[in-house]
């Protein structure tokens, strides 16, 4: 058995064998009386072509393909090295294309494709059992009573854990800071399959009041705030002012649920009037389907607590955990994947064009080799190998570049908007992808030039002039450039639409004046502020000090600030047998006096709240325009009464004293919410008072006001942490961060695509001019003027660009429909955008064709006619 690495030895042996044959043949002839010289000649003639015999014999060995491949690769590398301009241009283009594609793939893989980092994560799901078709959408959740009955009674689930979101203030370890946290049941982490890095998870008896002064912290928190203390387990920390013992640290990268950094035991206090919704994660038993599981939920929970009539029917759902983590990112990511795919195609088309132009210069070489006996298949294989070499090297370079690309993507992306961000990294899958893409595109785009280059038209190739410029593949090249233009237009249209959408959002009228507004949100911990009175006092003191800050024109407070992420909506009752319109809900913020003035909200009728609207004064409300129009259409809303309670008693009726303009409460989606405002002084529930946002209008620069607000807070209560602080402009920007990011990314892709298309146009036009130099020389000699020559070139460009643009617009109309859900107040077939894109591409084509056109007009007929 002979092995491939013995091949060289076998070749040597074969040579020896054939040489000995020849030797013996010569010897015999000499023995028969011929002269050595004649014997040599005759024997060689009889032997035949030594090279051919060697080749043919070697072929019987098999395994020659590896040899040939190595040979082709060496040859390809040599030819690429000989034309550095081409190699570098093509290589860079490809590297950028593959690099961008790999970067996007890495993100898509990390978010969409890879399973969650829990063992057998496809069996994990979120359980939900709540009314479905309500006006407000809610996250999947289980009522706490259902959780308790279910935890005991479910068969189809291996394990379950419940969680509830919390915000806790950490003090005593650096500045007081407000952290996202969660209250979790004892088996929560066991359900997920998470291994606790240090210490342990909670035990069941810690789920009771009095024994729940324990906590677990996340890896980042442990590292940043506690210096990676190895004695962290058992240490006491202050959460919301109460001492908790740390019992465990979670492994790095785990911030589930709700981005939590600190976890406490979940204590359930079931009360008949109030039910809290919990997020429940469950691990299904092997083989159990979601439908079976949902049916079990309905029967167990529904059986334990049959729903009361008048309440909307509850629907059981079992939602795979991965879907909830990915959320809305799927659509954006797929759009990016599509966009970057287009960029890659354009890059490949450009390189294919370059290859074609280069191959045209080599057709003499190919013709010669064919005439000398090389089979066409061999030549094609060689050219394809050369292309693949280029593609693979460029691809490897691109993969290396994608590392930086991924980092840039994640840095530019709105923070926290890309789910599973810490799981995204360039890894083996990404490199395999880059390699696969390179191979595929290299094969596809390298094959056609190879086929064209080796077309068997020997005579005309060999006889062609040594200029090396031929018009043979003009059709294919033009088609490629037209395709590039079309693809670039599709991308540009997408970018244009998203940019317009973003601008529209940004310019949205919100109903209040954001510029100059500064907000500071504070959550009051129940431990230090036990009563509504205490909270109100805090607000008054703080407000008073804020108003006195230098640079502040006015200050006010609101519990649910617009665009603040938290909102309470509800219904209300009316007097005199009136009913509000079906399903009509209003936001119910409570505000301090002077709120509307500070925010710049227009007062349409009546008055604002004043200091007189205190706890003992008659209850008053200010309604927004939509409420007035919906409830008292055509009438004067002032003096009317409504109540926030379901069954209002005589003292529960509130009088409308003012009507204000509607404002955007929830987000920049163009909607203005109906709102009913109450003065904070007249509120008693701590729930409505513990979360408060102070707004101040800065006369000048906001920064000194920001610092001042922090100082005021520290002065009023040293242990309070700021939940968030910033300018309203920044908050608005954050809201549109995502569309901005999307528009930017697609913008970058489309700019690159346009550049490539321009290069493609330039290449083709320059080539066309070069091959027609002779013809131009004749025309000029016969009296053609510069403009005539220029119009020649212009015609060539138009023939190229116009079909491409038409094709591109058609493609854009078809493709941009996909973007419809991401656009705001802009239609996918917006004619203005498409027109602008078409004009841009035409202008770019004109600029790209400028240089070759000038060169054409400068053709000296003497030189042109002489070089033949």
């Amino acid at each position, binding site marked *: 058995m002979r092995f491939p690495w013995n091949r060289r030895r076998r070749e040597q042996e074969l040579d020896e*064998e054939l040489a000995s044959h020849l030797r013996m043949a010569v010897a015999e002839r000499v023995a028969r009386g011929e002269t050595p010289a004649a014997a040599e000649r005759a024997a060689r003639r009889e032997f035949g072509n030594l090279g051919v015999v060697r080749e043919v014999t070697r072929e*019987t060995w098999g395994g020659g393909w590896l040899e040939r491949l190595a040979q082709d690769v060496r040859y390809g590398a040599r030819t690429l090295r000989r034309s550095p301009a081409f190699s570098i241009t093509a290589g860079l283009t490809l590297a950028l294309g593959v690099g961008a594609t790999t970067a996007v793939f890495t993100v898509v893989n990390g978010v969409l494709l890879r399973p969650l980092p829990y063992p057998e994560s496809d069996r994990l799901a979120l359980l939900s059992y709540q009314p479905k078709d309500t006006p407000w959408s809610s996250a999947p959740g289980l009522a706490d009573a259902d959780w308790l009955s279910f935890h005991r009674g479910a068969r189809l689930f291996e394990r379950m854990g419940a969680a509830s979101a919390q915000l806790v203030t950490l003090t005593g370890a650096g500045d007081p800071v407000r952290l996202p946290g969660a209250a979790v049941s004892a088996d929560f982490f066991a359900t997920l399959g998470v291994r606790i890095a240090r210490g342990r998870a909670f035990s069941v008896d810690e789920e009771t009041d009095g024994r729940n002064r324990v906590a677990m912290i996340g890896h980042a928190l442990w590292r940043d705030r506690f210096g990676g203390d190895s004695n962290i387990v058992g240490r006491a920390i202050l959460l919301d002012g109460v001492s908790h013992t740390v019992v465990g640290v979670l492994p790095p990268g785990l911030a589930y649920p709700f981005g939590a950094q600190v976890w406490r035991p979940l204590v359930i206090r079931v009360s008949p009037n109030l039910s809290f919704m919990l997020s429940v994660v469950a691990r299904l038993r092997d083989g159990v389907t979601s439908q079976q599981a949902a049916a079990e939920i309905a029967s167990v929970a529904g059986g334990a607590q049959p729903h009361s009539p008048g309440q909307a029917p509850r629907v059981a759902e079992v939602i795979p955990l991965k879907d909830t983590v990915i959320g809305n990112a799927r659509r954006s990511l797929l759009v990016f994947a599509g966009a970057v795919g287009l960029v890659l195609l354009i890059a490949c088309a450009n390189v294919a064009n370059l290859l074609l132009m280069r191959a045209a210069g080599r057709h003499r070489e190919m013709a010669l080799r064919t005439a000398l006996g090389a089979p066409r298949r061999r030549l094609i294989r060689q050219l394809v190998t050369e292309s693949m070499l280029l593609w693979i090297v460029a691809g490897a370079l691109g993969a290396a570049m994608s590392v930086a690309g991924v980092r840039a993507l994640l840095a530019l992306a709105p923070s926290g908007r890309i789910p599973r961000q810490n799981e995204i990294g360039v890894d083996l899958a990404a490199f395999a992808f880059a390699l696969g893409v390179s191979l595929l595109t290299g094969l596809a785009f390298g094959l056609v030039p190879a086929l064209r280059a080796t077309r068997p038209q020997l005579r005309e190739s060999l006889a062609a002039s040594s200029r090396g410029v031929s018009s043979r593949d003009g059709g294919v090249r033009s088609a490629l450039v037209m395709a590039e233009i079309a693809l670039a237009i599709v991308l540009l249209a997408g970018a244009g639409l998203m940019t317009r959408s973003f601008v529209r959002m940004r310019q949205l009228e919100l109903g209040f004046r954001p510029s100059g507004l500064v907000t500071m949100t504070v959550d009051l911990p129940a431990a230090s502020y036990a009563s509504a009175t205490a909270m109100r006092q805090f607000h008054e003191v703080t407000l008073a000090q804020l108003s006195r800050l230098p640079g502040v024109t006015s200050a006010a407070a609101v519990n649910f600030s617009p665009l603040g992420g938290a909102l309470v909506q509800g219904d209300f009752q009316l007097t005199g047998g009136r009913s509000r319109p079906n399903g009509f809900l209003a936001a119910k913020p409570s505000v301090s006096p002077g709120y509307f003035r500070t925010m710049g909200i227009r007062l349409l009728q009546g008055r604002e709240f004043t200091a007189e609207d205190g706890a003992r004064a008659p209850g008053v409300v200010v309604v927004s325009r939509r409420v007035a129009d919906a409830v008292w259409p055509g009438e004067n809303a002032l003096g009317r009464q409504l109540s926030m309670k379901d069954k209002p008693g005589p003292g529960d009726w509130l009088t409308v004293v003012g009507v204000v303009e509607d404002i955007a409460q929830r987000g920049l989606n163009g909607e203005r919410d109906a709102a009913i405002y109450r003065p904070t002084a007249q509120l008693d529930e701590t729930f409505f008072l513990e979360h408060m946002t102070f707004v101040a209008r800065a006369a000048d620069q906001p920064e000194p006001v920001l610092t001042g607000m922090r100082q005021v807070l520290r002065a009023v209560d040293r242990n309070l942490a700021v939940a968030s602080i910033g300018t309203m402009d920044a908050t608005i920007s954050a809201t549109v961060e995502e569309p901005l990011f999307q528009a930017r990314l697609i913008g970058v892709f489309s700019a690159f695509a346009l550049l490539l298309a321009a290069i493609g146009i330039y290449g083709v036009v320059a080539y066309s001019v070069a091959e027609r130099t002779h013809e131009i020389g004749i025309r000029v000699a016969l009296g053609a003027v510069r403009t005539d020559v220029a119009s020649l070139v212009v015609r060539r460009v138009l023939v190229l660009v116009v079909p491409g643009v038409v094709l591109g617009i058609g493609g854009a109309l078809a493709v941009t429909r996909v973007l419809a859900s991401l656009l705001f107040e802009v239609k996918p077939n917006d004619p203005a955008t498409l027109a602008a894109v078409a004009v841009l591409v035409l202008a770019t084509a004109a600029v790209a064709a400028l240089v070759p056109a000038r060169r054409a007009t400068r053709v000296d007929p003497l030189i042109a006619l002489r070089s033949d």
Partner: protein
Amino acid sequence: MPKDERGLTRIELLQGTLDLIVLQTLRWGPRHGYGLAQMIRASSRDVLQVDTGSLYPALHRLEKSGAIAAEWEMSENRQRVRVYRLTTAGRKQLAAERSRWEQLSEAIAGILAPPVADGDA
């Protein structure tokens, strides 16, 4: 295509037939490539001259399939020559090829022979 000095023409052989000839010739004892070519020429009374472009691929192919085995030996004038010999498997293959050839030549002989006279024709 140059003719041999003795005015003989070369006949191109089918690959299967060449295998048969090589194996049969090796039955008479191990030979190197040149010797094999000479012997085939001699045995066929100069009718068959196998050219190197057919012989050596055949030899290497047969070696790869195990019908023959090869070794380097020293010739009389102390030069290295590669000598081939028949293996057991080769003998079996030879027998099979031989019977196939005989069948074939019988069949062709039957076609070429004058037709059997029919009673009434």
